[in-house]
């Protein structure tokens, strides 16, 4: 399905996870049949767990709640809901063995949102799981060891009256896909799907509530199974246990005559009542209980009546539920959004109720009391930046001081300090910000520096007759240097032999012909060899590291550079002889 557009959302009945949370065993088997003989290969078992939130829920899993957390408002026409960022979460666990839906049918969620008034319940933190759920439920949950969780404790009868039936749970839980660009409910990394769990209880005006997201996994002992259809069969008194306030010994089953067991008695809340009345009541209670022999409705009715007169008390056993998430809100304040909006006093800025006796001119100015700089109290006109009609923009600016913006109204002679105060408030706000002051300085300094550069450049241009500089931001010094060098070197002819090599080579002692003639050599080639022309001046020069006195053979052998030079000389001499010899042989 296409993603929803902005402002749209798509609702799904449920999104079933591929595997419910739990422990799984995977068995791999391969059936092989060899010529009609089955020879199965040995299989193997793997175990794995699918884990998910069970007894606690990370706050980050909760994407949004309504009514708002700690909110105050008229929520008395809203059904509270919680949005969960994990779309499959409500269906990741089975509600109970009796409530498993076949594929294709709506599964039963294991989460319920229970709305309780503040004084109806108590939030308990860090409880052992065994203290929260009854033993039978603990066993059905698989007896997980060492689990501690939060819990909500409330009157069992109340919970039975409020908790939705399993079929209702199905209807109260759905998946919502919203446009992720939409602001609401969409965290940045969300895929746009949210599982939403609704409550079935409407807050009443004036109440303060705790909304509790509870796990009802295996809590079929608390969930009602029949829809109360209006016929009164028990109602609030159905199953209520009664007891007389007295010593703890009197809570024993025999004394009460009802099915209160010792642990249940412990769970009962005892409400103190005058001891004398209690003792007097004991006998009165015992007799009817015995007489009606277990018809609890009658017992309850009877005792409820007697409670008023005799101080007998209906005891309400408490029940606890695993609490995954909770938040509080107060349902107070009047009016819905619609009512508030339609009752608004609409007007332009400057419209005032005549009864308020505030004098506003038609331009929107009001008089305010000020003390002028001489210390005299006086009245001035003031108008804020929010005006009732479009104004033209003051073109006289910029102003450099507040006094420039002070005006006197001709008709009244009073001063109009609107713009002067605007100036001052701007100045004060800016002065309070150290960083702004620094940046202002930087802004100005940059301008001053650029200005002085420009001045220098113009002066330079005029003085030096520079032509190339057009942009004052260019590096002037570089341009200037290049320009100056150009001018200096202009007209100077480059020297022919800048390093004097030609002149040196031209000296008579380096002319092979002259040498050959002077020393009576056979050929010019001999003279070239003698002059060592071949590597010539182009050869790399080996410099001896330092002049040392080579006194011993070791010194000589250690002088590598010298030895290398000698080797070179020898090689050159051998080469010369070889050239000669080859010439002769030829």
């Amino acid at each position, binding site marked *: 399905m296409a993603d929803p557009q*902005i402002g749209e959302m798509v609702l*799904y*009945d449920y999104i079933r996870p591929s595997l419910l949370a739990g422990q799984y065993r995977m068995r791999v088997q391969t059936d092989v049949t060899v010529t009609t003989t089955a020879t199965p290969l040995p299989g193997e078992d793997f175990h794995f767990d699918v884990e998910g939130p069970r007894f606690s829920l990370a706050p980050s899993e909760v994407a949004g709640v309504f009514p708002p957390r700690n909110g105050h*408002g008229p929520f008395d*026409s*809203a*059904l509270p809901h919680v949005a969960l960022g994990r779309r499959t979460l409500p269906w990741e666990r089975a509600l109970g063995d009796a409530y498993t839906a076949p594929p294709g049918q*709506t599964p039963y969620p294991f989460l319920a949102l229970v709305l309780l008034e503040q004084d109806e319940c108590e939030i308990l933190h860090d409880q052992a799981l065994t203290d929260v759920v009854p033993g039978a439920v603990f066993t059905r949950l698989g007896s997980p060891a060492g689990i501690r969780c939060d819990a909500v404790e409330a009157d069992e009868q109340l919970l039975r*009256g*409020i908790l939705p039936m399993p*079929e*209702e749970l199905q*209807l109260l839980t*759905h*998946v*919502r896909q919203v446009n992720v660009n939409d602001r609401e*409910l969409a965290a940045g990394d969300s895929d746009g799907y949210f599982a939403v769990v609704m409550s079935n*209880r*409407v807050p009443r005006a004036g109440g303060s509530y705790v909304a509790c997201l509870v796990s009802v996994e295996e809590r079929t002992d608390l969930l009602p199974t029949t*829809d109360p259809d209006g*016929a009164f069969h028990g109602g*609030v008194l159905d199953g209520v246990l009664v007891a007389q306030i007295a010593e703890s010994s009197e809570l024993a089953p025999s004394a009460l005559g009802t099915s209160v067991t010792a642990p249940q008695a412990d769970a009962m809340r005892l409400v103190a009542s005058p001891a004398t009345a209690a003792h007097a009541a004991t006998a009165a209670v015992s007799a009817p209980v015995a007489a009606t022999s277990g018809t609890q409705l009658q017992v309850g009715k009877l005792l409820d009546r007697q409670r008023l007169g005799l101080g007998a008390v209906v005891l309400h056993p408490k029940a606890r539920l695993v609490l995954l998430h909770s938040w509080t809100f107060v349902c107070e304040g009047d009016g819905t*959004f*619609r009512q508030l*909006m*339609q009752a608004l*006093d*609409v007007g*332009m*800025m400057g419209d*005032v109720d005549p009864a308020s006796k505030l004098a506003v001119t038609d331009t929107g100015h009001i008089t*305010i009391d000020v003390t002028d700089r001489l210390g005299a109290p006086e009245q001035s006109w003031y*108008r804020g*930046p*929010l*005006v*009732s009609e*479009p*104004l033209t923009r003051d073109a006289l*600016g910029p*102003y*450099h001081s507040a006094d420039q*913006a002070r005006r006197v109204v001709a008709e009244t002679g009073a001063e109009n300090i*609107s*713009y002067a105060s*605007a*100036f001052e*408030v*701007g100045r004060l*706000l*800016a*002065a309070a910000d150290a960083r*702004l*002051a620094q*940046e*202002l300085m*930087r*802004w*100005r300094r940059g*301008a001053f520096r650029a200005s002085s550069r420009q001045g220098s450049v113009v002066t330079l241009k005029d003085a030096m007759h520079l032509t190339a500089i057009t942009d004052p931001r260019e590096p002037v010094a570089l341009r200037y240097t290049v320009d100056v060098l150009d001018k200096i070197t202009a007209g100077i002819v480059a020297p022919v032999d800048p390093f004097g090599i030609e002149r040196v080579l031209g000296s008579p002692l380096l002319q092979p012909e002259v040498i050959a003639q002077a020393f009576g050599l056979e050929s010019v080639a001999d003279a070239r060899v003698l002059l060592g022309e071949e590597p010539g001046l182009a050869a790399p020069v080996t410099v001896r590291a330092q002049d040392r006195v080579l006194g011993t053979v070791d010194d000589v052998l250690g002088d590598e550079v010298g030895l290398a030079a000698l080797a070179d000389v020898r090689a050159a001499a051998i080469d010369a002889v070889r050239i000669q010899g080859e010439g002769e042989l030829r």
Partner: protein
Amino acid sequence: MRVPATTARLALHARLTHPAQEAPLQPEGALPPYMESFLAHLRLLVGVPFEYLVPDDRLLPPESIRFFYLDRSWTDRVVDGAVAVGQIGSREEAHYQARAAVLSQRLDQSERMVRPLQRGTDFVDAKKASDADRTPAGVVTGFLLRSSAVRNWPHMDVRAYDRTIGEPFKTADPEIVAHQLPLLRLELLAPSVMIALFQGEPQMVLLEEPHHGVQFGVRHRGAGLAVPLRNGKGEQVKVGDDAVPVTVPTRPGRTDVVRVKALRDALAADPRGVPQTGSGAFAISVLDPPWRQHFQGTEDHADTGVPLDRVFIHVADAVQQPLVLTGVTTVLGLGG
């Protein structure tokens, strides 16, 4: 508290990618980013104490909304005042005198980046977007809303349109979006006071109940509860102008606990409603779509030629008449 306009990362990036690595080569006209952002915020009155905006609380009584034009001269003075910090001599004054016009033009553009900045957009990106918008500074309008609705319905949607649009309409429709005025600022000044600034002059302003309200709602009807019948798109099924109420059954003895299944059956009994196939359909039925409040229809007679009951003497026209002109020049001794 303002978010700094530039961060160490940005500053480092600017430093490293600067071609000359040398401050003097920086063009002189560039405003330091923080300063530009600060002044743009001031232009939209961010940080200006509330007493300056509403000098007397009788101007904004409880449960009221006041529309206004923004006085540009006033905000210009605020900026003048801010720049006056450290303006100690004629040199600084001359500097500002020379640059005020350019600065003002620049701020006309950069005031459009205030809202993106407030919403956490990177300064560089926000500035790029605001610089790309070359439309000259126009009228800025807005409203102040003082109501408990502001506190109780946080994040309500505020939109302004330059023409009146009849309900129902889709806010995402491109046709409609084209008429929407840009929002320059939308902020709470106090828990129950909201200010909004629009770029342009709206003909219609909408305040919409926040969408996370996409709540499940019931209506109090007499002593009991009811939900209006809805079709598959969440729209109310109407007979004439009236919605079709479906009474919400509650558990006996507990008038605040809804019999969900019975309600579903009651909803399914009416073929005009959404077919009750599961929890999704049920959710649609009990959804309470956001309320959308229109503010529109107040006729503005400015520049419409509607005759007023006051008589104006058109001085400029009169002066142009030859006879009067001669008279005036004679009186003023200009005739020569």
